[in-house]
């Protein structure tokens, strides 16, 4: 079963405040993704990787084309879906993990990781236990668990970010550079955690520049060049 079918997707930015300047970020994007598959999105900076991911998550409004997502409740075009449908999908199925942690002031590391669990009304004590377990696996020092992530280092923030995204075991995960500022050992942990999600049926679209991560993690690669798909290369099954 396909979890995602992207047909003729395009994205332009019309910058009214720059006298209507038009920037073409994506064009003629076509690909499908099977359930439980991990696709690696590669390409130079500025090639449109994040734009594609944001169009799928609907942080960007696609200019044309369709993105058919096969949800638990049936097929839906993420380009045309209502805001409320998207909110529902984000709550129950689709998670986006950005490259940078956008932190909330005065919320502890553990509670930041719990965010999605709290939102789905999970018992707070249980949720915090799960978060601690996750942070333990990711090697975040226990002394930081009750601290506020605003002051953390890049690698520490990234681990919080990844933990927050995967703790609720989303059905479809969009993840941007999950291993970029991590050491080798932590990279392996992150790769294993994502592979573990895959084992449980999660489909993953992952942006990465890191050859090691791609090698270990992805089933297929999708290379973008100047907003278009350059090649779709499958690794032998």
């Amino acid at each position, binding site marked *: 079963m396909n979890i995602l079918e992207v047909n003729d997707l395009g994205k332009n930015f019309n910058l*009214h*405040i720059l006298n209507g300047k038009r920037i073409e970020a994506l064009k003629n994007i076509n690909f499908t993704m099977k359930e439980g598959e991990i696709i690696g999105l590669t390409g130079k900076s500025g090639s449109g990787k994040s734009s594609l991911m*944001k169009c799928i998550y*609907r942080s*960007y409004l696609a200019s044309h084309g369709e993105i058919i997502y096969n949800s638990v*409740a049936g097929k839906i075009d993420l380009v045309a879906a209502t805001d*409320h*449908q998207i*909110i529902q999908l984000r709550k129950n199925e689709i998670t986006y993990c950005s490259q940078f942690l956008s932190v909330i002031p005065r919320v502890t590391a553990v509670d930041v990781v719990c965010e999605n669990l709290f939102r789905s009304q999970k018992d707070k004590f249980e949720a915090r236990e799960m978060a601690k377990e996750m942070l333990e696996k990711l090697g975040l020092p226990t002394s930081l668990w009750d601290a506020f992530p605003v002051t953390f280092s890049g690698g520490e923030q990234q681990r919080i970010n990844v933990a927050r995204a995967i703790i609720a075991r989303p059905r479809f995960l969009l993840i941007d550079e999950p291993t970029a500022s991590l050491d080798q050992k932590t990279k392996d942990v992150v790769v294993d955690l994502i592979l573990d999600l895959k084992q449980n049926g999660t489909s993953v679209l992952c942006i990465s520049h890191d050859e090691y991560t791609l090698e270990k993690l992805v089933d297929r690669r999708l290379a973008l060049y100047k907003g278009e798909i350059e090649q779709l290369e499958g690794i032998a099954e």
Partner: protein
Amino acid sequence: MERNDDNWLLRVRNLTKIYGEANENTLALTGPMFNSNICPETDSIVACAGIDFDLYPGEVLGIVGESGSGKSTVVKLLYFDMEQTVGAAWLKPYNDGLINILSESNQKKRFIRNHLMGMVYQNPRDGLNFRFSSGGNIAEKLIMAGNMHVGHIRERASDLLNKTEVPVQRMDDRPSSFSGGMQQRVQISKAIANNPPLLFLDEVTTGLDVSVQARVLDLIRELQQDLGIAMIVVSHDLSVIRMLTDRTMVMKNGRIVESGLTDQILQDPQHEYSQLLVSSLL
């Protein structure tokens, strides 16, 4: 996947407020296209016009825009602080959403306000009675919602003050002796005392210093997570909007110029004014 468009808690259609005598051209000659909300023919002022939206249970909706864009007017109309020129609103828990609450009698409006809504104003003086103690203020709201048992009222008041981190020992002190942040937290306690399904927050962190601001925002997030209250958050501060809301409406000159998911408004704004607003963000 079904659209399920009927799941709204609050439905608002064509909500409009005009000060002064308008004529048939007033609406056509005002708005973002003219960069003005003053009618050139009649000098009437269009505070807001043609406001349409649905708010879902537990959802947090932001209204953002510059001063005078009409964002506060929208919540004040819905909380019956002023009267609309035209427009309608329906609230699901009130007669199953079949009756336009804006055309109800004053007595019924008071009932709706006391039982089904809460409001937190920018200025605590608008939401609190400074002649009453902080506990007394909460009691006032509870009594109006039909609670008469003094013991229960005091218990609920101390629970609420606890929740909002106001020292319970100060329950019998007047809010005038509190700091601004504490007054704001008492006001929030009062607003949620009757467990309303709908809470309006009008510039609640404006004027507070950043540490107090963070505390108030925290409290609001927690209330939303724990109690699932639907909220309309009015703010000119995009960081407040980003932190609290799922969806956002951008207003200018009394009109909604754009609405969408908050992260979309912030990352891919479509309207010229939204682009200007977002690019001005520090």
